[in-house]
């Protein structure tokens, strides 16, 4: 029996640069994407491509070079983003994107650290990390793509699956309510909380840009279609039909109380920037409290100059 293994091709950086210079048949996002990794593995109609494009759009708008940012993702379809972006990225184990990113953000405070992951990753196994990072106000830009199920493993119920929604593990409807993510992030201490759908790419680019302007824990939820996992059992139709649903059912309300942002099956979707507050981030508090006190010889409530 003959075994067929793909040849390992070392990446040809020079050839890629030549191709970019010529601008020949290249996609404008190519300088942000790892050559050879596209086409991606996402299903037709999946919302993840839109979110990735918006993220790149925000980087471009902010004129961030690829070496000024780092992207950390967890496991799942959204987690693949780390593999596609041509910058410092890390594809962590399931649920652990935030602790990894916390280490990164503290060690390299000048880097823009984004956590790009799915609802199943950030709020199931990773739920504890998220609320504590928000409480500490670590300088992380969290972008959570919410498609209401574990898409990659075949559409099982997760922490955001709405009550009554059907998934492969809740064939007769989910008996548990899902998390209201903006509300949870807000209650945990996030300084910036927004929600958009993939039908709102312009607002999303703007929102991601805004989150980069702030120092502290920011949280953006992006509602995205998963026609393969969540759409099919709930009869939401193709990715396009889900976009129509977002168009018809989204209500933009800036400054809305996140408590009102709960999403019900086939219900309306409140979008907008819900929270944009300011409070000292972890680094600053640590510098002004702990380090200053230590420098004052452990006495009194020293403050850094």
């Amino acid at each position: 029996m003959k075994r067929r293994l793909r040849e390992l091709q070392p990446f040809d950086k020079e050839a890629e640069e030549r191709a970019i210079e010529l601008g020949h048949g290249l996609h404008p996002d190519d300088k942000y994407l790892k050559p050879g990794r596209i086409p991606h593995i996402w299903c037709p109609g999946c919302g993840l491509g839109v979110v990735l494009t918006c993220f790149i759009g925000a980087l471009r708008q902010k004129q961030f070079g690829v070496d000024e940012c780092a992207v950390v993702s967890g496991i799942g379809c959204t987690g693949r983003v780390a593999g596609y972006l041509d910058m410092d990225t890390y594809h962590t184990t399931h649920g652990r994107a935030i602790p990894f990113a916390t280490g990164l953000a503290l060690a390299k405070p000048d880097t823009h650290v984004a956590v790009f992951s799915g609802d199943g990753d950030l709020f199931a196994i990773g739920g504890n990390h998220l609320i504590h990072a928000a409480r500490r106000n670590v300088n992380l830009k969290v972008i959570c793509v919410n498609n209401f199920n574990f898409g990659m493993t075949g559409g099982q119920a997760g922490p955001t699956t709405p009550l009554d929604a059907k998934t492969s593990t809740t064939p007769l409807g989910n008996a548990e309510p899902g998390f209201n993510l903006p509300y949870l992030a807000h209650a945990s201490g996030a300084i910036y909380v927004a929600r958009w759908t993939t039908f709102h790419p312009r607002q999303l680019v703007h929102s991601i840009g805004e989150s980069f302007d702030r120092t502290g824990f920011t949280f953006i939820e992006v509602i995205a279609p998963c026609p393969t996992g969540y759409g099919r059992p709930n009869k939401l139709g193709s990715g396009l039909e889900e976009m129509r649903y977002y168009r018809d059912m989204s209500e933009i309300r800036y400054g809305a109380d996140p408590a009102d942002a709960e999403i019900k099956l086939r219900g309306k979707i409140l979008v907008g920037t819900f929270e944009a507050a300011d409070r000292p981030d972890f680094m600053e508090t640590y510098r002004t409290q702990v380090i200053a006190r230590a420098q004052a010889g452990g006495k009194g409530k020293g403050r850094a100059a």
Partner: protein
Amino acid sequence: MGRKVGIEVSIAAADAAALCDVDVVAAYPITPQTHVVEHLAELVASGHLDAEFVPVESEHSAMSVCCGSVAVGARTFTATAAQGLALMAEIVYIAGSMRLPLVMFLSNRALSGPLSIWNDHSDAMMVRDCGWIQVFCEDGQEVFDAIIHAFRVGEDPQVSLPVMVNVDGFVLTHVIEPIEYWTKEMVQKYLPPFQPVSRLTPEKPVSMGAFGMPEIYLEQKMAHNVALLNSRPIIEKGWTELAELTGRKYSAVETYKVDDAETIILGMGTICSTSSLAVDKMRAEGKKVGLVKLRLWRPLPSDDLRRVLAKAKDVVVLDRAICPGGGNAPVTSEIRAIMYTEPERPRIHCMIAGIGQRDVTPDDVCAMVDMALSQSIKDYHIYGVRG
């Protein structure tokens, strides 16, 4: 006799658990285990199985739920793979040492990193010492039977230990095979209702999970080890009665053409099917080769292994996990250890293969045997590495 159906092994495994009337299923989705739990969720939702399905938020919680439900006396089942097992490992050890007889379907998958969803045995080897009964299956029928057998043995009051049924991810979990189902009557005859040795009940309060202070910890560990070793006759009895019901006789160590064999290949799980083809091929070339399939990994059937292996000149162990920085690989190291005290012992060769589902064909097995016999490989050899 039950009906024979062509069915995906994962689905059949879920049906086997359902036939055992499990009370609680707690699991978190992970490739390649998902079909097992999805099917159980369907059975619960459709009313075919009267059980609680708990879609927990992590594997750590899954195993914790399982421990709680067994502690109150509910028949409990879960399934996972690689990273999921790694995350639940803390509680896996606790289930073993607290003697909580749940059953786990482990779809064997390579541990990260690099991230891999494909098959090898590195996950099972990570929890080798968790004190569970651990069996490896070669085909779908074995998986089906092993799950029913697992409940029967684990829940036996003389055993009271959790059981791990190892099933090679994808290469076995996702294939469609002809599987003979048991009837409900057969299961009822074979598997008595779960009567836990001790359980949490208000009528007779007990404390579980208490501290093991230095005065008692060692004795507790010893008791656990003795319980695991003593489970062997009950495991055998389970197989004997299974044979009476189904006509299929399993044993801890199974052999193929070993009677006059000078060289014995030893493996666990699906690699044994591949190896049996290699044995036929080498026999046709006049080489005296046989195969030993190790089904029962814990408790290790040292007596049977010694008896079978002592007659051979060479034993080629096909290990499916790498032991970085170690002397060889997990299965080889056990085989070398138990044979060391034998007056006459074969040369034991360690071949590490099929890591991260790198394909192993019968030709590869032949090549590994040739290599082991003709080259002087000292500790181990990792087969098929490129570059």
